[in-house]
């Protein structure tokens, strides 16, 4: 793999979004940051994104709604959720519709990297 993996990070909390972005960049990912659901949909569907890392709760279109919209347009989209609400019905619904796991906030950065790596491997395997 010559080019870096491109990750779209959605979180309305700027600190979290930037923290995630910095760690991903330090680990060799290429990151695009968005802070609301609509921007996430247009960024993901605009192409040049390999994976999504979406927060759930936020004003306006939330992370799950954005996820469902993207899934509707791109059934093979790879998106991981981040939320403090593991038993949230939003989350349950998203997982039922093909979200690739949930990172329960607060999570250790290593957990996030490990999950991203798993998804990456799975995607590679399915492509190959």
């Amino acid at each position: 793999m010559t080019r870096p993996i491109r990750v779209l990070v959605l979180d309305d909390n700027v600190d979290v979004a930037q923290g995630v972005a910095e760690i991903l960049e330090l680990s060799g990912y290429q990151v695009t940051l968005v802070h609301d659901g609509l921007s996430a949909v247009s960024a993901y569907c605009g192409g040049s994104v390999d994976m999504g890392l979406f927060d759930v709760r936020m004003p306006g279109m939330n992370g799950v709604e954005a996820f469902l919209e993207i899934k509707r347009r791109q059934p093979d989209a790879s998106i991981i959720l981040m939320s403090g609400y593991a038993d949230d019905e939003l989350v349950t619904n998203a997982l039922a519709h093909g979200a690739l796991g949930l990172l329960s906030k607060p999570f250790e950065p290593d957990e996030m990297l490990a999950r991203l790596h798993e998804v990456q491997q799975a995607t590679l395997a399915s492509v190959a």
Partner: protein
Amino acid sequence: MNRTDIEREISEISARKAYDRRIPVPEDTAYCGIVRAINSLLSEAENHDKLLRERLDDLVDARDDAQTSNLLLKRVKDELRARSVQLDSALQKAAAASSSKSMFLANMSHEIRTPMNGILGMAELLNRSELNPKQRQQVSTIVHSGRALLTIINDILDFSKIESGRYELDPMPFDLKMCLGDIVELLTPTAKRKSLQIALEYGSGLPRHFVGDAGRIRQVVMNLAGNAVKFTDAGSVKIRASGSLDNGNAELLIEIIDTGIGIPEEQLADVFEKFSQVDQTGTRRHEGTGLGLSICQLLANRMSGSIFAESKLGQGSKFSFSLVLPVHEKPMSALELNTSLEGRTILLAGTPDFTEPAQIALTEYNCAIIAVPSLSLAPQALSEQTSNGSVDVIVLISVATPDLLDHDIAEFRKTAAHAEIPIIMAVTNGTPGDAKTASQAGVQAYLSCAFDAAAFLQMIRFVLQASSRPDAQGAPAQLSAPPLITRHSIAELAALKTDRPDNAPLGVERRYKVLIVDDSMVNQEIAKEFLEDLNCDVSLANNGQEAVSVTADQSFDLILMDCQMPVMDGFQATAAIRSRRTAPTSPQGPIIALTANAFASDREKCLTSGMSDFLSKPFLPNEFDSVVQKWLSTQAAAA
């Protein structure tokens, strides 16, 4: 629904916090009002509960986010710290590598210079022997190629030395103007060959004497001016010195301005990079290591200055060398020319291009100036503008060579009143032989650099002084034919006045005893031949030990000592010779180190071990001769 039902319903709702439930309104009018009221309260409670939950969710979300971002931040910090440690160690490794690179370069250049010494020295000796023209051509090719190679090696060595910070400037009082004048003089033959004008403009009012590393300053300016001449095919090269004084320090600006090929804008920033040359495409018309400008920039930085380049493609370039030097308060004594120009009348003949700068240079001296476009118009101007039809001095300024002015001068001299007026011929580009032609044409003084205002003034003063001396007055020029006055004769006079004994010529009547200590037969032979040409009796020693024993019962006027030798090296030998208690009949003369190691630190090591001077190998004949002669003349003075 009776009262009991209603009560049960209420307690159930309360226990389960099921505020979204409502109690069915009973038929019984006694209860229907209160149930409706309770349902309305429930609906309010439901709203409040929902709001509360949302608030709580937001709070939890914010807490989760804060915790998450803390974890992320901590990780980012750790990661960055780890990377900076990595970078530090990488930096250290790079520094170590760079230092070992300089060491390698130093060692390598030492290794190369030693055999180069053999090649160049032998070729030089071969050149002095009987050769047929073809052989002479071949030998001179060897010499030229060898010197070119030596230049490259020296450049690389110099660069690595300066870059690694392993050299220090050597500040001494010096005459900046003379230093720049020497450069112009050195480049004049090359410029002349390309029909270029080359001139020095030394700011009037700018002091001449500063404390600085004259050798390094000369190196920078020589490099820039040499490039200017090299890359200019028509027009001129000008060296301009200006500056401002501040508290005993001068901020100097030396500009080298040419009308040459110029440098494309996008390459202007790169010219100071190592190994870059503008003319990289096609034929390599201009040779060099490409290190010159990088070295200059490093040197300028060391002198609290820098070098800027400005250029217009096809129109020319300007390199500005700025530096800060302390002004030297007590300059060395020079020839005092106190002849005043005040009240004198000076006629300038030449096209306005040339006479105007001269007029400007003369303005502050209160002399009358008559300017004419050519000498043939001088008689008319003199009769119109002077009372007696004569002037004190005439200056011809021209690009033309003296033989073209021959006729004009002869015509002018025909009038009796004009026969004795001293004429100075100032040309912008002199060639060897011009001075002689000028003398034969009947001029009294010849100046090869018309645009050097100070030399110009000095020349006029000197000529006025000479012509006002009683023995010169009235003597017919044709009979006495005093020697032509040139810049050099003035400089020589100045040197005589300063009375420096170390310039005394080597006595022919005395033979000097010189000892060569070197483990290399080749070096011994080269030095021996050079010395024999200098009227010396030469003895040889193969190492320090032999030198110590041969000096036990013999005195030498001079000892040339190699530094690195088997058995006993030059430093030990020098120390042993110098500390010897039972000296032979008379003390040993100076010891000069011969070494292929050209670092300043080596020089220091030589001097601290008791040696007097230092010759780096391979020695070039001129350098060798001048150092040896310098020390032998001190011996002659002591004897």
